[in-house]
């Protein structure tokens, strides 16, 4: 409260300092250890201006930790990098002013109203035209009529939208969203993503972590992290292609028992079950078809050529990682 009223004297960097080569996040070898556990290990990645970069990985893989290091909230134990052209270790203050970070856990105050929350955030950034900005944000959210409602009473979807509005208040160039749609219903998620695409179209760069595959598909580029290591990077199409997966879908009444049988075949890399359909993935098309020939001939099974899914690719990546690192 009082804090925001204090004047700040640190120099505002000139725009020359900001990255103009189109790279917004550029980190090399970021490493973070807690105790003797390496939570993020030699992470190097780049995010280009205006793109939506999806950050995927299983629980505890180090997504949140990486994001915190990128916005200067955590000091890496090794490695270096720039966000928006500012050093992540030494120029954290400049980064914070230009980045909107939406924390994984709801970071606003349940016992303040929507308006009070937004106003508080605006004060924290010591913004000018505070009232105007808060009004605009409320308008954009469609919350103008409910602005006096306590944030704690909002549903999950509205909370997330409000949190997004809060980190958009200071018009950041880069948004870091840490699992923004966890626990949000599908239609609210869709609205949320429409908004993200809208923002990207306006030139804002977005780094978003998620566990949802449909959301991953909506990103321009993806990075997949497991055990603190970045295992794969590329567009969703590239990732699928690079995996070399060929997929055959089998459907039938009793595919459950079949699943294990198929997975035991050497040519089959992975079998995933969707209801009454099995997605059978292999990496060598000829060998896969040869191995599956007896099943294709069966009357009680219907088969077709399928499309490898991102999810299968990621699960495959993670299994490989498990074999390699633990």
């Amino acid at each position: 409260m009082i804090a925001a009223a204090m004047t700040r004297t640190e120099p505002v960097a000139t725009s020359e300092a900001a990255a103009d080569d189109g790279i917004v996040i550029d980190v090399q070898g970021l490493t973070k250890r807690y105790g003797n556990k390496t939570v993020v290990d030699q992470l190097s990645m780049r995010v280009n201006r205006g793109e939506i970069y999806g950050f995927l990985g299983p629980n505890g893989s180090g997504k949140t930790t990486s994001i915190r290091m990128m916005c200067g909230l955590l000091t890496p134990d090794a490695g270096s990098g720039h966000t928006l052209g500012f050093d992540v270790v030494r120029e954290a203050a400049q980064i914070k002013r230009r980045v909107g970070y939406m924390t994984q856990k709801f970071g606003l105050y349940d016992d303040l109203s929507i308006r009070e929350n937004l106003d508080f955030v605006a004060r924290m950034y010591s913004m000018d035209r505070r009232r105007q900005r808060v009004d605009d944000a409320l308008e954009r959210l469609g919350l103008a009529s409910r602005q006096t409602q306590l944030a704690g009473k909002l549903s999950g979807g509205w909370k997330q939208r409000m949190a997004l509005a809060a980190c958009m208040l200071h018009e950041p160039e880069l948004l870091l969203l840490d699992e923004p749609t966890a626990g949000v219903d599908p239609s609210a998620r869709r609205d949320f993503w429409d908004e993200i695409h809208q923002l990207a179209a306006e030139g804002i760069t977005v780094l978003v972590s998620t566990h949802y595959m449909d959301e991953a598909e909506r990103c321009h580029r993806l990075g997949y992290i497991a055990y603190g290591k970045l295992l794969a990077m590329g567009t969703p199409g590239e990732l699928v292609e690079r995996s070399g997966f060929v997929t055959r879908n089998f459907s039938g009444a009793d595919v459950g028992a079949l699943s294990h049988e198929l997975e035991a075949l050497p040519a089959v890399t992975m079998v995933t079950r969707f209801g009454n359909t099995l997605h059978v993935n292999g990496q060598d098309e000829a060998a896969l078809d040869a191995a599956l020939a007896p099943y294709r001939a069966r009357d009680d099974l219907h088969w077709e050529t399928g499309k490898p899914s991102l999810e299968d690719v990621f699960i495959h990546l993670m299994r490989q990682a498990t074999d390699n690192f633990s």
Partner: protein
Amino acid sequence: MLKEFIQLRRDRLTFAMMIGIPIIQMALFGFAINGDPKYLPTVIVAHEQGTYTRSLVRALENSDYFRVVASDVTDAQADRMLAQGQAQFALTIPAGFARALERGERPALLLEADATDPGATGPALGSVQQLAISALAHDLKGTLAHLQPDAPAFEWRIQKRYNPDGITQYNIVPGLMGVILTMTLIMMTGLGITREVERGTMENLLATPVRPLEVMVGKIAPYIIIGYVQVLVILLAARYVFDVPFAGSFMLLMLCVLVFIAANLTVGITMSSMARNQTQAMQMTFFFFLPSILLSGFMFPFRGMPDWAQWIGEVLPLTHFLRLIRGVMLKGNGLPDLWPEIWPLLLFMLAVMLVGLKRFRRTLD
């Protein structure tokens, strides 16, 4: 029930507190607390030296209740020592005492007591009548033996300074201010900051350009105001409900309060940098609060405690604040008399602040 025990075992701090607090309590109540304070510092203002003076000093020294810390001070010095609390009693031997005594005029000896805490001086004052009879017994023999019947050869004139009627409220009510401030300020800041961390709002705050120090100042400032509101409420109650006199300067009191509030806030902040959740912050508050009320001289006379307990007491801010506020309200002390209690507060604050700053996480590391 098993689950509770398992959870308890995981939460080391809670466990330590549950064991630690009763032990501390037992130690304090069992060993430290003594309702019968002895060896109270006494100064002698001797306007006349002589056999009787020496015998009186020796008698006081030999008694359990008095400890003569200076045997030849001036009136003004004695006054100051009483005001600053260095001396609990001042005995004045008037000029011509020996002559008057030998003539059988039953002269008066002035014994002044710092009676702000009636409990501290009561037992000692109760013992002096007996002392009057025995003190000069050895000197009044032979020709002077007739002066030594059942009645003592001299009279005590006892002056209970600062609280002549021995009203306990005069002592308790100002002290209560310190206790309430300690409790609320430490708890509020401790809880306030750990709550932000626990709810995840701290991460959000740190992600904004505000500096951690500003966050702190922003969190603390309201509590300073709350602290002053409490002070005013208690002062009003002291004045109009309990009729506690107010001898000193109001502004000076406000200054002392400020130093004390600041000291408590640093404790609160430092605790919050160590506590991992609100429960722990709460427990730490009690861990600090308990010795504060028991060892500061609020509940029991400070000088009634053994040395080790007094040393601990000297570290606690409440101890010094009690002396300050009693000094201002009851004794009407000015800044020079208060300074000996102010610098320990400042020192305490500085030390705790250093620990706190070391522990405080600028980022989330």
